[in-house]
């Protein structure tokens, strides 16, 4: 799918607008994970907007594609996209993490809202996606299963158990997307538990590996398209991203992994993102 420059710019602006929403949600909740929510938003948004077959009026639709946020702590990113595509009411976003809210701190299964399964305990969502992919094959359904993983999450042994199973069963309907932002909770992934050479690891596990620049919209779309047209192998998209991206003081740091911005930080963050939106729109 070729997209025009205007479309590309519109997507960029949407992504920045969603980032503002995420920041507001986490700021109002005064808890949550800004760094890893901001990093992966481009991937989730483009999946829902341009790639996946879904219908917010029919969340039970049997032939729908499935998205599983295995890195469940990026819940605000998922909720904000689900709101943008019609599953969640916008005003509900700001009840995040509050008592009585449907929007729990981590995704809690709720098909009406487009949440396929509860996640948050890292590693489990990826195994779930293997089961979905096997079931789709069993039913002869032409549907895709997408799982978004954190790079720190790849430390979990179950990830590699699932990776083995996926290539064993030739799950070409399964696409794993890795938010390769390079930082986990305690520090950089290479310092805490080295992952590199990451692409080689997945290749050795029998996967088709695609590496993309996760902040380049064309790259993301191309990556997904290639993945959707891969046969007899599962595909992993290693997406190079920036933790906390587009908020200068949240970028490339573990500091805002699990810490909300205070009021002043929130306001600075919004001003920074607004500036970027203006820049792109001035260009439109």
């Amino acid at each position, binding site marked *: 799918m070729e997209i025009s420059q205007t479309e590309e710019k519109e997507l960029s602006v949407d992504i920045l607008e969603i980032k503002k929403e995420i920041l507001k949600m986490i700021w109002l909740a005064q808890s949550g994970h800004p760094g890893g929510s901001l990093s992966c938003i481009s991937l989730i948004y483009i999946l829902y907007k341009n790639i996946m077959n879904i219908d917010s009026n029919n969340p039970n639709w049997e032939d729908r594609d499935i998205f599983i946020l295995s890195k469940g702590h990026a819940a605000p990113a998922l909720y904000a996209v689900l709101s943008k595509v019609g599953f969640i009411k916008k005003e509900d976003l700001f009840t995040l993490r509050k008592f009585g809210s449907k929007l729990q701190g981590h995704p809690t299964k709720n098909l009406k809202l487009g949440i396929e399964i509860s996640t948050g305990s890292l590693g489990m969502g990826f195994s779930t996606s293997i089961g979905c992919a096997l079931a789709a094959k069993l039913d002869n359904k032409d549907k895709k299963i997408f799982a978004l993983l954190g790079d720190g999450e790849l430390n979990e042994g179950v990830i590699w158990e699932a990776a083995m199973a996926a290539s064993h069963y030739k799950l070409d309907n399964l696409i794993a997307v890795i938010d390769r932002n390079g930082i986990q909770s305690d520090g950089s992934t290479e310092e*805490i538990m080295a992952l590199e050479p990451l692409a080689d690891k997945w290749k050795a596990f029998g996967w088709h590996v695609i590496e993309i620049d996760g902040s380049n919209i064309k790259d993301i779309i191309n990556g997904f398209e290639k993945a959707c047209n891969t046969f007899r192998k599962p595909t992993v998209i290693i997406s190079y991203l920036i933790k906390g991206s587009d908020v200068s003081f949240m970028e490339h740091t573990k500091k805002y992994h699990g810490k909300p911005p205070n009021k002043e930080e929130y306001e600075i963050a919004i001003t920074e993102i607004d500036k970027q939106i203006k820049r792109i729109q001035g260009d439109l």
Partner: protein
Amino acid sequence: MSNIPARDILGKFLVENGDKYENMVVLSADLSLSIKTDIFAQKYPERFFNFGIAEQNMIGASMGFAISNKMPIVCGFSLFTTGRAWEFIRLACHDNLNIKFVTTHAGLVGGDGSTHSALEDLSLMSCLPNLNVLVPGDNVEIEKILEYAFNTPGPFYIRLPRGSLEDIHKKDFTFNPNSIDIIKEGNEINDICMIGVGSGSSIAIQSVSKLEKDLNISIKIINQSVVKPINIKNFISRIKNDKCILVIEEHNTYCGFGSIISRIVSENCPKYIKTLGIENSFGQSGSRIELLDYYGFNYENIKKIILDLIKS
């Protein structure tokens, strides 16, 4: 003003005792900043091991350390440590290894919600032979219990909350696993003996004087930090004169401390006993105050349960 969070007490204890326990190694699964084991890591980098987000491997490795004459202190969130790696812990207990599992974020966790609450860990841990299961009731007791566990060979599970505990002891408190810790004396015979576990003890303390006045009853409170093994003889001798028992614990009621105590009491000196815990739920997001209130840890509900007990 609220107290210092439990994890800060833990972090401080570890770093201050690094020289005393030379064979101690501290293990983490990408949560050293959250649990404050990072200060130990800075001072003793050669004795700190971060396994990344890999609880099973961390605990498997702790077993290797233990059979190599080290004393591994395994630190993590209560849910992920006990839940993800349960069978590893089972085998460690099976071989009676000298491993100390110290976890934080037990009970209701606030905003993180149901997927992160640890309301089942006491069930998972209390069924394991050899394992000592201890739940400190306040900051003084955290230190005393850590000290006791570090000086006593064998596997220990020490359960701490995400936030802070209210003070229930004087500074000179000493911990003895065999003695029963009465934090509010009653009469010779009491209408109610409240037994708190962890945060349950301060919840009991907070409501007691009003309950005694409003209901015109006498109440004794025990802080039962020893979930396992309980010195049954001593325990029974301290509750035998009381008419009824109310257990308060931030855990689910299916197989928590209330179940354990109900069995011990019914087998040794039967009397009415109820448990205030979390009924049939995995928890949810919300502030701590809202959640405690919602799950019935409030004055009105405690009063209602006690009235029911007295009537029976």
